[in-house]
């Protein structure tokens, strides 16, 4: 490790290896494709957030005053479609999955680099289709496209939007195939399955879901298009269809889709917790297999979205039981992360704060999910803000917090620069407070009975809506603050060196940013994952964060006292 130069030659850094526009848009380098995806998702996040802003503004008062009912419906549909399919589903796999998988396995690239590039172009194409539909006026079906409303009654650009989502699925499938084949074939010598970082396991499980679930969504969406465009009776009862069939098919994809969002987040947290606690993960195999268990069980619980739909009572009971069961592998992870801190050497640095925040939000989101799986309770709170709050805790509170934790953890690796640790911690705390203030009141609203997708409501609900809306500026600050200090570090930050966190993992053994082909020499793995040394930080290499080192350097002479 000592022979790695602090700042590698320009030609060896993947950012600067070639600096033409063409070299970016025709790249097959998994790291550059990850950057392209990240930039794209950044844009979609702001578009989706605009929809959320309209919703929370409108909800401040009981009446319909900010936008019309139609405008409100179009806003939440935009928010849902963009955030689910063009932000959350691709979020971690296409950015950190692409960037890290070859680095973590000791490979030069993914198994199919050109297919990887193709997946980005497909994603861009589908994203542009969706934006076109929105630009032309949008639609008001909600992201769930329930029939026969979407197939017959809804105005707006339904067919175009559905086609956009249909196309985006191919991007998911290609990424999934690429990750699975890479994991099977491109592991470095000595990188056995049980030496792989848990992020790789979670990505593998995610890829299985992507490949197996996405085609069902594609079929379902094509059937709606067939019904809308050609009047073929599939879901519309007036021409011989069955509206519940759509819900079964839709949730057969869309429930596993939640696991596409959260499984890679689990993987990120396993990396962050071990690096923050400087300890080997507790129960490696249990965590690894729990990802696979979630991927499998996740396919068997779709009917818990339909307890009030009119499906048979016995189906409801079976789906409820399976939903209780799927909570088990999720709980395994949370208990193991907590146990990993035992006898660790813990620093509350930025990534670790995000990880701890994640565990809190995920546990609360998961447990309210188990409450929703209880049949008779769900009959009351189904289609209310209780459900809205629950899935935002998982899909935003947990998944996006994990993503931001990952951004901070691997930022020095990706850019080669250090960010301001104080601002980083502040952003992590702001995000957590803002998120809880925004979404916790929605649990109360939901139990009170406030239905989802209402643009006007009874005045008694107002206090909770005002609290919820008041949380959003804090939440927004939690999202925006990193844009500024990370952006600043990009230009002015100190060089990070190859391993500022003193973390384990192959990606930390190469230079920052990594060279075009990831590693300058051959890679050989001889140790288990997360094999952190136990020694006292005053002896041997210091397990300090780079930011703290920088701080120590600046205040030379005082450092010994500061450390105590």
């Amino acid at each position, binding site marked *: 490790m000592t022979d790695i130069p602090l700042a590698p030659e320009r030609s060896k850094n993947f950012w600067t290896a070639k600096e033409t526009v063409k070299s970016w848009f025709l790249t097959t380098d998994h790291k550059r494709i990850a950057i392209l995806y990240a930039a794209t998702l950044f844009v979609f996040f702001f578009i989706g957030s605009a929809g959320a802003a309209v919703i929370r503004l409108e909800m401040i008062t009981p009446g319909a005053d900010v936008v019309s009912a*139609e405008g409100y*419906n179009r806003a939440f549909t935009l928010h849902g479609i963009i955030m689910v399919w063009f932000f959350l589903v691709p979020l971690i796999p296409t950015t950190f999955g692409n960037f890290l998988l070859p680095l973590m396995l000791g490979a030069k690239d993914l198994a199919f680099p050109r297919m990887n590039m193709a997946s980005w172009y497909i994603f861009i194409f589908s994203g542009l289709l969706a934006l076109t539909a929105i630009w032309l006026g949008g639609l008001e079906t*909600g992201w769930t496209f*329930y*029939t*026969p*409303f979407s197939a017959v*009654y809804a105005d707006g650009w339904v067919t175009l939007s559905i086609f956009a989502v249909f196309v985006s699925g191919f991007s998911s499938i290609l990424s999934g195939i690429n990750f699975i084949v890479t994991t099977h074939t491109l592991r470095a010598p000595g990188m056995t399955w049980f030496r792989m970082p848990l992020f790789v396991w979670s990505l593998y499980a995610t890829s299985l879901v992507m490949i197996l679930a996405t085609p069902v969504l594609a079929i379902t969406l094509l059937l709606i298009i067939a019904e809308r465009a050609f009047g073929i009776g599939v879901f519309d*009862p*007036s021409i011989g269809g*069955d*509206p519940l069939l759509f819900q079964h098919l839709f949730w057969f994809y869309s429930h596993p889709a939640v696991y596409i969002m959260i499984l890679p987040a689990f993987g990120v947290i396993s990396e962050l917790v071990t690096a923050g*606690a400087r*300890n080997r*993960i*507790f*129960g*490696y195999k249990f965590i690894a297999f729990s990802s696979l268990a979630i991927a499998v069980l996740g396919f068997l619980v779709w009917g818990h979205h339909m307890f*009030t739909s009119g499906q048979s*009572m016995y*189906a*409801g009971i079976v789906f*409820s039981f399976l939903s209780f*069961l799927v909570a*088990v592998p999720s*709980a*395994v992870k*949370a208990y193991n992360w907590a*146990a990993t*801190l*035992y*006898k*660790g*050497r*813990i620093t509350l640095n930025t990534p670790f704060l995000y990880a701890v925040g994640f*565990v809190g939000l995920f*546990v609360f989101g998961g*447990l309210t999910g*188990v*409450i929703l799986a*209880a049949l*008779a*309770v769900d*009959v*009351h709170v189904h*289609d*209310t803000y209780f459900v809205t709050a629950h899935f935002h805790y998982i899909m935003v509170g947990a998944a996006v917090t994990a993503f931001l934790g990952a951004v901070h953890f691997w930022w020095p690796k990706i850019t080669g620069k250090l960010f301001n640790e104080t601002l980083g911690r502040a952003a992590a705390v702001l995000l957590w407070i803002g998120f809880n203030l925004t979404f916790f009141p929605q649990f109360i609203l939901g139990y*009170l*009975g406030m*239905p*989802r*997708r*209402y*643009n*006007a409501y*009874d005045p*008694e*609900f107002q*206090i909770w809506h005002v609290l919820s809306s008041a949380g959003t500026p804090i939440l927004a600050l939690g999202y925006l603050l990193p844009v500024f200090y990370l952006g600043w570090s990009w230009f002015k930050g100190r060089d990070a060196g190859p391993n500022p966190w003193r973390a384990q993992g192959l990606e930390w053994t190469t230079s920052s940013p990594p060279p075009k082909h990831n590693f300058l020499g051959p890679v050989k793995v001889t140790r288990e994952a997360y094999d952190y040394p136990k020694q006292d*930080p005053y002896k041997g290499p210091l397990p300090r964060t780079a930011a703290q080192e920088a701080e120590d350097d600046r205040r030379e002479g005082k450092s010994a006292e500061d450390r105590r």
Partner: protein
Amino acid sequence: MIHVLSAAGGGVAFWPEAISQHAEAIDALAISFFALVMALAAPIGFALIWFAWRYRRFSEADRDQPHHGSSWMEWGWMIVPFLLTLVFFVWSGVLYRDLHRPPADAREVYGVGLQWMWKFEHPGGQREINTLTVPVGEPVRVILTSQDVIHSLYLPQLRIKQDVLPGQTTSLWFEADTPGIYDLWCAEFCGVSHSRMKGELVVLSEADYEAWLDKFDEGPALAETGARLYRDLGCSGCHGVEAAVRAPDLAQLYRRPVPLKSGETVIADERYLTDSILMPQSQIVAGYEPVMPSFEGVVDESELVALVAFIKSMASLEDMRTQEPAVDGLLDAGPPEREDDQ
């Protein structure tokens, strides 16, 4: 309107009023389940805080740790919480089953959802829009269908909702125990005016309810309307006793088992009757020819409701009560052969 629980909320709506035994049971279930899951989460929070302090970077705590995992702990925190939560799976499952088993003597009201209003029709012919008037202390079953998209009838103070589907019949039942005016909302997004598709659930005392029923004198009883349609549409031409075409006899049909040509047997509930009027080819009665035309588009939802009410009126109530097992079968899950396509 939220009925503020003043003790807990002190003026701020914090907990919705509960006006049935079922609603109180749901509250008890939800609160105790929440307590359990918090108890299961507590060790995680405790461990995070305690370990983060005990094993902070510069603490001198002992860090000798030969094992990074423990099978008995792993299986322990998988199995014990699961078994504890299963208590709530069973409890909520029993309540859910009860929701699907209305008492045989429940009062029946027909509801139709359409963009964007609720129509209710009582067996005596009383019609209401966006108001559902029911007596206190008596089980009431609302039989629902939709004229256009999927809606969902939500009665938050009763803690129940049921999706309302076009072309299919669903139902919910309740027994309110406190007179008053409560919320009635649409919970399934149904278009532009979804948030205005709401009304009132009016729970009246027995005397007030009888007075309210008597106030209506304009319309004929629902079954009478159905009887007129039955003649006008020509149903009696085939299904009547002296009809030229041989068709199944509909008297005493309701809630009886019907043997089908396919070899299966279904219970003639509202859903079966509705399906047979709209899609007569889907379930052919054994021993009959599939000659009946579809009345899809010929009758609207309220006419359909009247026809079904008339067919039901031909089965006497006394007979129904002797049909308990059949009633159970129907209310549990609907006709068995529709299981797989739902």
